[in-house]
């Protein structure tokens, strides 16, 4: 197929809101855009297991521990659904792991912040997973079939994550003054990084053009961020948490909240490797990867001995 025919038939499908499937012809730029986006999404799920994993042994009750374990297992699962989706585009799992470890591929900036108290576990579930849900619900309509299907599965599981986090926050807010203060402190530290999860403002988002044309992206960064703010403010009020933004105010005309200026300098600093935990997260991934090498080697040796498929 020559490139004009390819682009015409591809764009016809996109315009008709049909999904693009792995064996369909697609422009090279569409493929590379998706590989970058899906693999980074997968890396975020996997790296996101680390900050929470630190709290398994310190969970305040057996119930809390079981829930946290289940949540972390889900995050691992989500990473695997997404790696599989990316692999349908022709990149191998080995390459993706290498790109993560070498720093060529990024993961969500939010996981470069430390998890200091149990209230942070609540804030992560409620705010970080809450922000991720807003983004992922919109991605259920993304044009690439395997990515959209992974999003459906993830969204179904993710709402448990958000609710368990909100429950932790609500419990702490109905506790002692110390517990309330701890919850508010977690809120203060996680609110702004959660807003940054949606990425730069639309006016400053370099790759959005193509992503919209190809219907990879259905809603803009600012639209999604607004949606998240509008639904979260009320949830905070119900349990008595205040939003750490002096400029937050209901805008009657726009029927949504105005918010204060996001500190993009901090965003850039952290995404470029200078956040509190960047090095720790990647070092941990590399160490475990290397420590597990003998397991993979043994599994391969066992496979060769079994000769299940000659």
């Amino acid at each position, binding site marked *: 197929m020559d490139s004009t025919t390819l682009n015409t038939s591809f764009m016809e499908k996109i315009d008709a809101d049909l999904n693009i499937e792995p064996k*369909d*012809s697609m422009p090279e730029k569409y493929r590379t855009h998706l590989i970058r986006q899906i693999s980074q999404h997968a890396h975020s799920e996997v790296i996101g297991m680390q900050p929470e994993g630190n709290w398994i042994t310190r969970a305040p009750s057996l119930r809390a521990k079981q829930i946290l374990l289940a949540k972390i297992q889900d995050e691992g699962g989500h990473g695997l659904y997404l790696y599989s989706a990316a692999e349908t585009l022709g990149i191998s*799992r*080995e390459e993706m792991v290498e790109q993560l470890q070498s720093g060529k591929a990024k993961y969500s900036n939010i996981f470069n912040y430390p998890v200091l108290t149990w209230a942070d576990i609540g804030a992560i579930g409620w705010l970080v997973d809450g922000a991720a849900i807003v983004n992922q619900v919109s991605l259920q309509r993304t044009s690439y079939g395997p990515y959209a299907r992974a999003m459906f*599965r993830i969204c179904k599981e993710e709402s448990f994550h958000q609710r368990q986090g909100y429950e932790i926050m609500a419990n702490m807010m109905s506790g002692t003054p110390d517990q309330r203060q701890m919850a508010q402190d977690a809120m203060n530290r996680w609110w702004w990084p959660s807003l940054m999860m949606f990425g730069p403002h639309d006016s400053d988002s370099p790759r959005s053009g193509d992503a919209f044309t190809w219907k990879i992206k259905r809603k803009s960064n600012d639209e999604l961020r607004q949606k998240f703010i509008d639904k979260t403010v009320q949830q905070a009020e119900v349990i008595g948490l205040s939003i750490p933004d002096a400029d937050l105010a209901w805008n009657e005309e726009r029927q949504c909240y105005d918010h204060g200026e996001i500190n993009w300098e901090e965003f850039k600093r952290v995404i470029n490797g200078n956040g509190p935990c960047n090095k720790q997260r990647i070092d941990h991934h590399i160490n475990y*990867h290397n420590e597990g090498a003998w397991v993979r*080697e043994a599994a391969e040796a066992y496979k060769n001995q079994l000769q299940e498929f000659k």
Partner: protein
Amino acid sequence: MATDTQLDLWEVFIQSKSGNHHTHAGSVHASDKQMALQNARDIYTRRNEGSSIWVVPSKYVTASNSEDADMLFDPSNDKIYRHPTFYVMPEGAKQI
């Protein structure tokens, strides 16, 4: 150290409950059949999604090309006599 391997790719089919078709759910990495089943169970059935799992090494799946879709599937468009609604039934006939 040997070159890194992330093991082989397998496709996973899940039957949600007995009597239903096995439906493609996604894929897993594993080095043998048993590991593939175990991983599929852990990754795709954490919430009662399955009553049975099939795993197939991805390299043994043959798929049609989307460019061939017209050639493969168009011919059935003009054979509407394959559908029961094509036929004219006599007035008053019941249970047909």
